[in-house]
């Protein structure tokens, strides 16, 4: 990049003031005239058929406008159309109010629409369904496990087995389990649908992908895509729950179309369990190594849960073939169909679960071999991608181990379990490796510059709370030589230039590059105008010879030679100039290289020696993620990831009652995430990493890497403290007590 006044520097969030003053509007907050309110009624059984729904009492409530069910909905071809979306796995996507079949407990079976929210909510309690119930199967342990016949787009099946099982001198083996987890972003899913006639539709939606929702609605309702607009300027957290369009989007649009009035549908917190979350897993890891700790074999088999109607897939085991080289590498991944809603891609999908198992097993191997856990990983360091025998675009994981260990004081660790104490608390230090993909995917952005020196950046990408508005502002400000205040970034609107869902930690690299290129293209177009002036000082200049600074297009080496923005625009008779730029991944890079972010996570726990209460008193996460655009927002991302991982380690579990096929703790009082009291010191260390191949900015993204490895580091620290290996998350008192 030519100038880096803002990129790479700590900058406050540009959307911060709007958010803290309440000016930022969320999906359920857009004022709409004549609005109706929809409240969803859900199924009480997990499997079977609806035999009847008694609506008499509900319909009799004054103010109720309509109640939709599978038998009371518009007769149209909508349900025959394709309900899939950009990130849908193989299968038949769930269609709300399609027929009498109940696929999961909490399935929407009716939508009560009323003049007021309170009326709709009251009437919804009067809807009484009767069912022909079948016995649900929700126990991943007992259902059949199968290899998904069709791979999900973007999720590589495990590579073929390499090598033969040998008799390694050192062997460790364990079964690991991770529970169902639910994102539970603060903002509930909500959609406000407004039709203009019967062929134009606007929906204010909570989503991570406005164009994903736009395309789905266009397909279902048979509309021209440019007649559907989905708006989601701000997102109150999503963590992957908003990647796929949720049924609130379809239901609001369907009801609004039928009633010819705007309709808003907001889920309850309880209903947030009906939109998928992190699938449960059962994993087996077997490691074999020589006396020196060098891995000879890695075997990692995982079973993940999915629904009966879709084969949701994630990459759980491939990381084990990527992180460490071993002559024998055997990775397996199967699914188990349960009578539950299809899981979704919860922050660091697959890696959060799979790396937990691998990195706990590595800790067990370190104990078995009598080798320091960091040293064990260094001895097994992969300088090339062992699975595909390719170099990495960049990989400063070795430096991450070193810098993280230094920051943490790892050298002071006594390797023996139960050897460190602080009064009556057992102290444990554990570590783990984290890894995530460094993704770079097509995005387009438009930059517009007006004669008054103000720039507008437009891209359909979402800012799900990560800081996208801010980093794009920084990139544009630097590229156009403007103060950040003179750059306005517009996101989260399907009419803006094309972007995929915001996920996979790819937005900073991809949207950022698109903005960078758009700004560069804009300067090129401006130069064309400037060269049209008589005796233009830039008459002989090429695109790379000029920069835009303080409203002047000037020669890079001779700032005295310039054309003002105003003069350049006037030369072309323009009042503004704009340009589009696209991030276009170079396929040859993907063929030649493997691209990942890496981290080294170090955790200190203190465990009450008698009562088993665990406190995570320190976390250090050293992250190698290429160029850090804004250390302040990036740090926030990683802190959030660390807390997410801590919750995974100690707290989060959606508890199923298999008799009902129903999650029982469907509220934030009983579904535990960390409280402030659970969070102590968290240090984020940015490891310098030069990334030259992936994209022009050298950015890799940090949205997910903070989660990966954190649970393993904490579990390993708990073992170091107590001598107790807990291989099933979350690590709760009951799992420690027998060993204390």
């Amino acid at each position: 990049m030519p100038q880096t006044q803002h990129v790479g520097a700590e900058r406050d969030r540009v959307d911060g003031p709007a958010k803290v003053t309440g000016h930022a509007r969320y999906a359920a907050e857009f004022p709409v005239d004549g609005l109706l309110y929809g409240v969803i009624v859900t199924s009480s059984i997990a499997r079977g058929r609806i035999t009847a729904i008694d609506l008499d009492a509900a319909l009799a409530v004054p103010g109720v406008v309509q109640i939709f069910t599978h038998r009371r909905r518009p007769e149209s071809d909508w349900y025959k159309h394709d309900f899939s979306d950009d990130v849908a796995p193989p299968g038949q996507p769930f269609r709300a109010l399609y027929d009498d079949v109940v696929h999961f407990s909490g399935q929407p079976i009716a939508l009560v629409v009323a003049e007021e929210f309170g009326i709709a909510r009251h009437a919804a309690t009067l809807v009484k369904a009767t069912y022909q119930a079948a016995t649900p199967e929700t126990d991943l342990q007992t259902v059949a496990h199968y290899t998904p016949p069709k791979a999900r787009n973007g999720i590589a099946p495990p590579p073929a087995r390499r090598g033969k099982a040998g008799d390694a001198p050192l062997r460790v083996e364990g079964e690991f389990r991770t529970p169902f987890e639910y994102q539970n972003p603060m903002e509930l899913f909500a959609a406000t649908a407004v039709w203009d006639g019967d062929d134009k539709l606007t929906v204010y939606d909570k989503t991570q992908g406005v164009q994903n929702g736009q395309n789905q609605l266009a397909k279902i309702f048979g509309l021209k895509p440019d007649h559907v607009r989905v708006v989601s300027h701000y997102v109150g957290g999503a963590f992957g729950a908003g990647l796929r369009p949720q049924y609130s989007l379809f239901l609001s649009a369907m009801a609004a179309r039928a009633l010819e009035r705007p309709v808003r549908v907001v889920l309850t917190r309880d209903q947030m369990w009906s939109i998928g979350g992190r699938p449960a897993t059962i994993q087996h890891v077997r490691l074999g190594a020589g006396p020196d700790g060098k891995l000879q074999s890695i075997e990692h088999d995982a079973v993940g849960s999915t629904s009966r109607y879709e084969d949701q897939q994630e990459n759980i085991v491939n990381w084990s073939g990527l992180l460490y080289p071993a002559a024998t590498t055997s990775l397996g991944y199967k699914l188990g169909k349960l009578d539950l809603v299809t899981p979704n891609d919860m922050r660091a999908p697959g890696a959060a679960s799979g790396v937990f198992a691998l990195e706990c097993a590595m800790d067990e191997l370190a104990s078995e071999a009598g080798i320091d856990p960091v040293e064990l990983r260094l001895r097994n360091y992969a300088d090339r991608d062992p699975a595909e025998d390719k170099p990495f675009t960049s990989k400063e994981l070795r430096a991450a181990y070193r810098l993280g260990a230094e920051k943490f004081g790892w050298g002071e660790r006594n390797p023996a379990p139960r050897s460190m104490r602080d009064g009556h608390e057992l102290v444990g230090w554990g570590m783990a490796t984290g890894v995530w993909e460094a993704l770079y995917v097509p995005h387009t952005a438009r930059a517009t510059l007006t004669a008054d020196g103000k720039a507008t950046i437009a891209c359909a990408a979402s800012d799900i709370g990560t800081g996208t508005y801010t980093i794009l502002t920084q990139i544009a400000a630097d590229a156009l030589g403007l103060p950040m205040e003179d750059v306005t970034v517009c996101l989260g609107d399907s009419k803006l230039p094309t972007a995929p869902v915001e996920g996979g930690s790819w937005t900073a690299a991809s949207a950022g590059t698109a903005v960078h290129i758009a700004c560069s293209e804009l300067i090129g177009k401006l130069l064309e105008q400037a060269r049209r002036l008589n005796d233009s000082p830039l008459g002989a200049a090429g695109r790379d010879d000029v920069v835009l600074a303080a409203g002047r297009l000037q020669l890079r080496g001779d700032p005295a030679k310039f054309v003002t923005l105003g003069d350049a625009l006037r030369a072309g008779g323009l009042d503004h100039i704009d340009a589009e730029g696209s991030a276009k991944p170079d396929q040859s890079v993907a063929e030649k290289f493997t691209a990942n972010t890496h981290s080294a996570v170090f955790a200190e726990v203190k465990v009450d020696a008698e009562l088993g209460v665990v406190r995570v008193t320190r976390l250090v996460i050293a992250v190698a993620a290429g160029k850090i655009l804004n250390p302040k927002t990036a740090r926030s991302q990683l802190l959030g990831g660390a807390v997410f991982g801590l919750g995974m380690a100690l707290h989060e579990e959606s508890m199923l009652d298999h008799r009902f096929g129903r999650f029982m703790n469907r509220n934030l009082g009983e579904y535990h995430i960390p409280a402030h009291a659970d969070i102590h010191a968290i240090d984020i260390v940015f490891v310098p990493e030069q990334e030259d191949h992936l994209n022009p900015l050298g950015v890799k993204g940090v949205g997910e890497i903070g989660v990966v490895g954190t649970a393993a580091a904490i579990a390993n620290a708990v073992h170091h403290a107590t001598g107790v290996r807990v291989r099933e998350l979350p690590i709760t008192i009951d799992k420690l007590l027998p060993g204390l």
Partner: protein
Amino acid sequence: MNRFDYVRADSVDAAIRAAAGDPAARYIAGGTNLVDLMKYGVERPSLLVDITQLPLRGIEETSDGGLRLGALAGNSEVAFDARVRERYPLLSSAILAGASQQLRNAATTGGNLLQRTRCYYFYDVATPCNKREPGSGCSAIGGRTRIHAILGASDACIATHPSDMCVALAALDATVRVAGRDGERAIPFGEFHRLPGDAPERDNNLEQGEIILSVDLPPDRFGPHHTYIKLRDRLSYAFALVSVAAALRLENGAIAEARLALGGVAHRPWRKPDVEASLTGEKPGRAAFERAAAELLAGARGQGDNDFKIDLARRAIIRALGQAAAGKPQSQSHKRLEP
């Protein structure tokens, strides 16, 4: 949420008159639990009688040297009242162990006594629950029982009472003063909440329409020798898996009087006066504490998920009695458990 009528009572008598004739009437003050239950469809009151304007807010000295906590005194007001902190630090500590600051600001003393179980099945109207719908069955038995009772449960209900404050009030031998159509009466704290038996729909022994006027504390007897330990699945804002309120009066290095109450393990705060009596005269120490723990937990039975609570309670009792004896009570702001 269902539709309901609402009246604001301007006197205790008016409140009782409004509520006494209607079994589906509910008093509302802080509403921190009732409103949630209404949203879930668990409580479907026909009438809400708003009692927030009644003159029951004060915290006053009693003639015997104790303290009277008005039913409408806020949980935060009680916890931070200088007299409570000085003379009943156990109560202050227990209150601060519960909920969040925002909830404690809204919740009242009377409401805290009347909060209902957090049993998952009680909250989920799609599952049978004898407490919610008498005779429908108990779904918790054979289900997810992490937060359920290990003591005093019945075949009809294994729910626990979720309050922290009540565990301290039980240990302190408080008295609940109530009023109803037939006048006022005083209920010893240990007789206020019920075990589920075959009528789990009744959490307590209040009669229809009775209203709590105050909770009266007897004079303090324990000085610094008390503690409240709460063990839960995260370090704040979670209900107790097990909690222990302990208070000791020591004379010449021996226990002259002991109080020991458990929370999170039964349908009411769990106390056994004979166990406390058996500690009298003992030297405070691990042997005596272990024996007391075993006696207090005699007959404890797990339901599967919650089997661990028996051992956890045993360990917690020993720790709590140790803290009380040492006069080093558990801090509720520092989440590290004291030795």
